[in-house]
């Protein structure tokens, strides 16, 4: 087990996000974390990467309890993982080459010639070797995400975390990113966690999946198991239906009453 989240409680300003969350990520597999917006998918990633700490419960990564680790131990752990941010999060004052080289320069003493080879290899893998001299502002959303992916894998991490990797991508970029996630997992054996609400895309690449709802895991299993689930909440999410236990409308006063009240005032 690479990641073991057990009975985690977490609240923001008194509003509970997780109320007894259990998630396990197995080595060498692609695990999908799904759920409607606002269910805490990104918060779960923050817990796993020790950006925030659970109020209660235990988060273990590679067998280490994150709550018991010092800052330097957390940094040592982070060197073994890579993360792809929704917007790429490329450093805007460096070109593509320097962005990918950044973690190598910071954590190794490799000679410049070797860094160059390493960076170009990773850029070639994401199809952007020719864009090495471009600045982040000159890249499209899909290209920025591919550069970020090259940066995330440049130190050959054991685990890769993808935060909403498919959002806002055109079909070609989306297909490329999906193939890359699959390739990283199959060719390099990298354990992957993919947070997304794109059910169809995840179903084709994920080995395991979790559906979060109401602060807990609503369903878990292989994507096809989730699709076959009888649970109304799972069915609603998988079919994208407005009607179901997950309300489309945010809690509000009665519609007609509010409309007429506005007229009277």
């Amino acid at each position, binding site marked *: 087990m690479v990641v073991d989240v057990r009975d985690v409680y977490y609240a923001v300003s008194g509003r509970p996000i997780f109320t007894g969350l259990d998630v396990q990520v197995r080595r060498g597999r692609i695990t999908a974390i799904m759920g409607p917006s606002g269910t805490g998918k990104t918060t779960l990633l923050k817990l796993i*990467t020790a*950006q925030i700490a659970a109020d209660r419960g235990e988060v273990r990564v590679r067998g280490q309890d994150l709550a018991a680790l010092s800052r330097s131990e957390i*940094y*040592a752990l*982070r*060197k073994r*993982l*890579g*993360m792809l*941010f*929704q*917007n790429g*999060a*490329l*450093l*805007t004052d460096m070109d593509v080459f320097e962005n990918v080289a*950044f*973690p190598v320069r*910071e*954590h190794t003493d490799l000679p410049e010639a070797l860094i160059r080879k390493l960076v170009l290899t990773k850029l070639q893998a994401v199809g952007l070797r020719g864009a090495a001299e471009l600045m982040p502002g000159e890249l499209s959303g899909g290209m920025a995400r591919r550069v*970020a992916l090259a*940066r995330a894998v440049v130190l050959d991490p054991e685990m890769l975390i993808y935060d909403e990797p498919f959002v806002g991508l055109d079909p070609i970029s989306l297909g490329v990113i999906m193939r890359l996630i699959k390739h990283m997992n199959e060719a390099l054996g990298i354990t992957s966690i993919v947070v997304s609400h794109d059910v169809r895309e995840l179903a084709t690449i994920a080995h395991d999946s979790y559906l979060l709802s109401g602060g807990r895991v609503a369903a878990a299993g292989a994507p096809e198991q989730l699709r076959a689930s009888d649970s109304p909440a799972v069915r609603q999410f998988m079919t994208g239906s407005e009607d179901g236990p997950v309300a489309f409308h945010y809690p509000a006063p009665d519609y007609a009453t509010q409309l007429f009240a506005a007229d009277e005032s």
Partner: protein
Amino acid sequence: MIASVGNGFILEGVRQLGSVAIFFVRLLGECVPALRRPRLIVHQIYNSGARSLIIIMLSGLFVGMVLGLQGYELLQRFGSVEALGTAAALGLLKELAPVVTALLFAGRAGTALTSEIGLMRATDQLTAMEIMAVDPLRYVAAPRFLGGVLAMPLLAAIFSVIGLYGAQLIGVELMGVDKGVFWSQMQGSVGLRNVTEGVVKSVVFGIACSLIAVHEGYHAAPTAEGVALATTRTVVASSVITLLLDYMLTAAFL
């Protein structure tokens, strides 16, 4: 109710002061490792210092010219226009150069620092660094802080030199004060202590303004409004703190 609002205001002030103090201690701890990356610090001196040169030089020239004009007008009443050089030099070295430079620094370089770091926060660049096991305090905040601290005395010195030229331009070239008297009086009356006072002030203002700019950017809410608010706070807090520190340092040097 007024008492509770007052208490809240004081509490918030103390909380903010505590936050800046803790940040300052952490930042100082990261400054030593940051010194191992001189390239980053030089880049920040360029950003905060060299890019502020035009505004500092122009302001210095105009302030010096005003000083020459006002000083001449005042000293003429007492028949001692030959003291114009001394008055301009003391005014610039001890007060105007460090204070005006700090205020301009807050408006030009301080806001740039805050908005740059705030936008890095808003676009997840700082979080990405943390995930890559690179401390953004060491890599982003410390070089910018050091760059600001080193740039401020240099800018204040340039302000003084250009200001003196401006005062000389008006006093000597326009109003006809004797050039030899202007410079020799200055040379005879301005001591090392006066220069030291200006340098100490500009270093302290550099620390205060850079700290506020970096702190506000680092803790800005990751939204457009958050970055805008942080930038405004940088200018307001830096200006007020500069003037407060100026009074305290002036009193200390008396």
